[in-house]
């Protein structure tokens, strides 16, 4: 495909764990058989509970962990086989912003040094003055003032540190920006500022965004497509509006129902509707469909058969054996009724 920036084909990441004393090692399947085509210029959200493999998946894209099986095709080139010294130059075009804004900035470096570091590595042709120009420009672009370059991370608030982290990632103008829970550690009033900033940057620079988050409301605001992961497997992939207004996978429905809504007329009724149970151990995943132990619609066949991640309609994939026979969704993610949404004087 011409508009594909990155494709994952049957990507699996396994970690060896456990009993080293007797030489028996179990394999933890953190990511299992993920197929994904990332389109140039889109913002893709990846959602799921902790332990669902969200972070491992994006780290495998960056080759920060090497996949156990499958392919990572970056701009037409398989990169999972490349030695690290050939992967590193590619990172100029793929950058990441982490969750904890303060912990991801070196406390002993000035803001100027932090933001200039990617330039030193990837653009050695720039001299000090050129680097400084770039650093000042990107700092101002993310809403900071250019005169902070001689200050240190601890002098800044969480929201400002996250802006610095975004500036460091954007200073190279990457083609792909991966954001791993970038607003989760921030105060509510600051989250909106960062979400808006990412939206603006995407509009201005046109980069592709992979946005990992457990906050489904934030994902809805920022992303055009959403991938739902459960126990390292892909459950559903759809355009954002379709996924929220017509979720098909029972897990997607459960996730949406669990997000609290600040409306006392709606929220009390939602409380009793969430998913039961907890994520099973990834060391011994359930047979068949891994979600069946928590699925309100599980049938005997779900224990026997592994659902294929199927392309069921335009822009929509789902891994569920029974999706076509399930009752309609109660509609927790649907927009509020028109009467409530519009002012009616």
């Amino acid at each position: 495909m011409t508009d594909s920036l990155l494709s994952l084909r049957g990507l699996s990441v396994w970690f060896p764990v456990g009993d080293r004393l007797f030489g028996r090692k179990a394999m933890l399947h953190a990511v299992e058989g993920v197929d994904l085509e990332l389109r140039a210029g889109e913002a893709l959200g990846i959602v799921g509970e902790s332990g669902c493999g969200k972070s491992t998946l994006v780290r495998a894209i960056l080759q920060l962990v090497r996949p156990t099986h499958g392919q990572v095709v970056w701009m037409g080139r398989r990169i999972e086989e490349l030695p690290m010294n050939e992967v590193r130059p590619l990172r100029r075009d793929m950058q990441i912003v982490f969750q904890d804004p303060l912990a991801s900035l070196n406390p002993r470096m000035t803001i100027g040094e932090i933001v200039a570091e990617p330039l030193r590595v990837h653009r050695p042709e720039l001299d000090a003055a050129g680097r400084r120009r770039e650093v000042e420009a990107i700092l101002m672009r993310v809403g900071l003032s250019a005169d902070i370059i001689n200050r240190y991370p601890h002098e800044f608030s969480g929201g400002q540190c996250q802006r610095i982290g975004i500036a460091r990632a954007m200073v190279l103008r990457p083609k792909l920006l991966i954001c791993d829970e970038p607003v989760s550690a921030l105060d509510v009033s600051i989250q909106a500022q960062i979400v808006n900033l990412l939206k603006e940057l995407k509009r201005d620079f046109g980069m592709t965004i992979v946005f990992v988050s457990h906050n489904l409301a934030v994902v809805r605001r920022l992303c055009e497509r959403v991938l739902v992961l459960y126990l390292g497997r892909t459950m559903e992939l759809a355009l954002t509006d379709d996924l929220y207004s017509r979720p098909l996978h029972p897990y997607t429905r459960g996730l949406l129902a669990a997000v609290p809504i600040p409306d006392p007329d709606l929220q009390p009724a939602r409380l009793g509707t969430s998913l039961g149970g907890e994520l099973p151990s990834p060391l011994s995943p359930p047979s068949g469909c891994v979600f069946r132990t928590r699925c309100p619609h599980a049938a005997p066949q779900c224990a026997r058969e592994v659902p294929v991640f199927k392309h069921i309609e335009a822009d929509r994939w789902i891994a569920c054996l029974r999706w076509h026979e399930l009752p309609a969704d109660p509609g927790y993610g649907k927009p509020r009724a028109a009467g409530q949404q519009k002012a009616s004087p």
Partner: protein
Amino acid sequence: MRSIPVTAEGTAVAATEPGLADRATASRPVLEIDALSVRFSTPDGEIPAVNDFSLAIRAGECVGVVGESGAGKSQSFLAVMGLLASNATVTGNARFDGRELLGRPASELNEVRGSRLAMIFQDPMTSLTPHMKVGEQIAESLVRHRKMPSAQARARALALLNRVHVTDAERRLDQYPHELSGGMRQRVMIAVALACDPVMLIADEPTTALDVTIQAQILALLAELKREQDTAMVLITHDLGVVAGIADRVAVMYGGRVVELGTVRQVLKSPRHPYTQALLRSMPRVDDAADAPLVTIPGQPPNPRSLPPGCAFHPRCQHAQELCRRERPPLLERDGTWLACHFPVELVDLGALGALGAPMSTLAAAAPEMPS
């Protein structure tokens, strides 16, 4: 730890016990906090963390206390529980069941804490004892407060684990906290808190560390306890969605003070303090398909070390005027809501604000008045 209660300037307003007025006929409050202030002495000077905090909570009622970091929401209730750091100075009153809690020695507080007045915390891993079995931790308060024989306490611990819907409860009794998942640990902590049938439960960000699905389960459990056991509850959280499902009333805190207090419908459906409004608008909603940029609150929550003069919210407020920069607005009752604002927003049904994208000032002017 506590100095003599003082009636500082301005407490006259708060002393009318905000929250009692809206339900004159309701039962006597379980906990009455009056003009509570918390100050920390540090090498850099005094830090006022909580100022003039007054709240009354009745049996069976759940009050949500909402605010961002540094708003003083946790410190207020840690002060009530006598759990503040040693450099704290507390003034004011907190009467629990008619008895003053503030300034009492730990030995006396321990008769109340963990038995009739219980608290659960954000991180169940650090609040549970790592080297004690789950069953023993639940039984501990029963043995201590109720002088229950240990076999009986164990049986009651089992019943409590079942009560909070812990699966496989018999086996869990002999497990250690690290063997449990985060959601399970939070259920255990709730079981510990419920052991002696408390009349009041203070929950400090009880779901913040949990996954959204597990959060929903814990919130459903708290709602069930409130419904079935008539336990008074304080729910401290930064998430307005969390209070919407359980709370009867909501107190919004900013810069160490309550800025808005009313029923959950008043505060979430027709907020009148500019901060509450802005906070609601800046939160993306999972049921909101709008594509417009989120309304943001400029700047960041104030550091209690250097609170702005006048109204602490004025540097971030779109309605701020000269008076707001100069004079701190007292907490006053207006149309059944308690508000600390010189220029409260007109009554507006937030549901009618639609796409939530328009600037606040135009909305306030254009939106129709809500029928009461």
